[in-house]
């Protein structure tokens, strides 16, 4: 499949690399030219520098023929807007959006977006670890 990834930070760059290793075609968008360094010199896909809210940038990265779209910039609202543009304007079949704020993530999940919320994951995992510690302590005590 062909995937467009927006935001080439820790998350976006690693997702892009993983997809390439699995044999997929990937193009990456980031507003900073330096973000290209995270991809490394051997990255086979295209890197487009620009603001993803601009349709010319999305189209330069090939969104019109994308099977999947990943919104992973460090701005929740930017991610939510470009994800909806990918879904509703370019009819991309699979759209995944990173949202740090759990409340907004839940709201847009209800509206049909596939959201990934690292904060929610951290809350759940920490609570789970503490509960299991409390549980084993109670048994021991």
């Amino acid at each position: 499949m062909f995937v467009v990834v927006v935001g080439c930070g820790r998350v976006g760059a690693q997702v892009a690399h993983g997809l390439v290793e699995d044999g997929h075609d990937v193009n990456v968008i980031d507003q900073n030219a330096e973000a290209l360094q995270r991809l490394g010199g051997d990255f086979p896909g295209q890197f487009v520098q620009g603001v993803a809210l601009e349709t010319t940038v999305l189209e330069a990265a090939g969104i019109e023929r994308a099977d999947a779209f990943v919104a992973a910039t460090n701005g929740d609202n930017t991610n939510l807007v470009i994800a909806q543009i990918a879904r509703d304007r370019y009819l991309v079949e699979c759209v995944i959006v990173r949202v740090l704020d759990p409340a907004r993530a839940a709201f847009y999940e209800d509206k049909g977006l596939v959201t990934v919320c690292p904060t929610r994951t951290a809350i759940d995992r920490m609570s789970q670890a503490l509960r299991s510690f409390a549980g084993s302590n109670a048994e021991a005590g």
Partner: protein
Amino acid sequence: MYAVIVGGGKVGANVGRALLRMGHEVSIVEARSHRFATLEAEFEHMARYGDGTEIFVLEAAGMGRADVCIAVTGDDEDNIIIGQVARDHFGVANIVARVNDPRNQEHFDLLGVAPTVCATEAILSLIEHEVPQHSLVHLFSLRRENLEIIEVQVVEGSRAEGQSLADLQMPSGAMVISVLRNRVGRVATPDTVLGPGDQVVAISEPGQESALMELFASE
């Protein structure tokens, strides 16, 4: 009426002042601490500190009982999200959103955040009105209502020249509301007779441009 204004810059603060003068209830949400301090000095408890794209901040500002949400931050993506959350999460009936970059207008339209106001577009319309480069100018759009206000100049030798409005065969879906002559505007009446150089202001459904050009601006 209760209005929640998100974004307390010049636009938000002035809209807030105007609504208060009209006797309405207002809250202004501002995320920049320095700007918030200035707002609080003037608006006291009506100024609220926080990121207006966070649901709990809007909740605390009383978005749940707002009659209108006015999203006027300097970021278009924020204004879109504020509009969607106000409408779909809080059930606010009326949304007004600011478009900072006119290239983002299509995103507001696509994602259902309307009506919108764009200063750049408004200035361009005014320039067109003052210094017309085209004989037909879009003065104002009511996108959600699917109406626009158009100005078109009457050209000498056109079908409209010399006709009274009563006799004028306007395209269906368009109506003359005013005629500007020598920079003075008058509300149109059936016996207004059109002369060359008159600026006709019409309210119209979209897509009537060529019919209006054909009537007023073709010799």
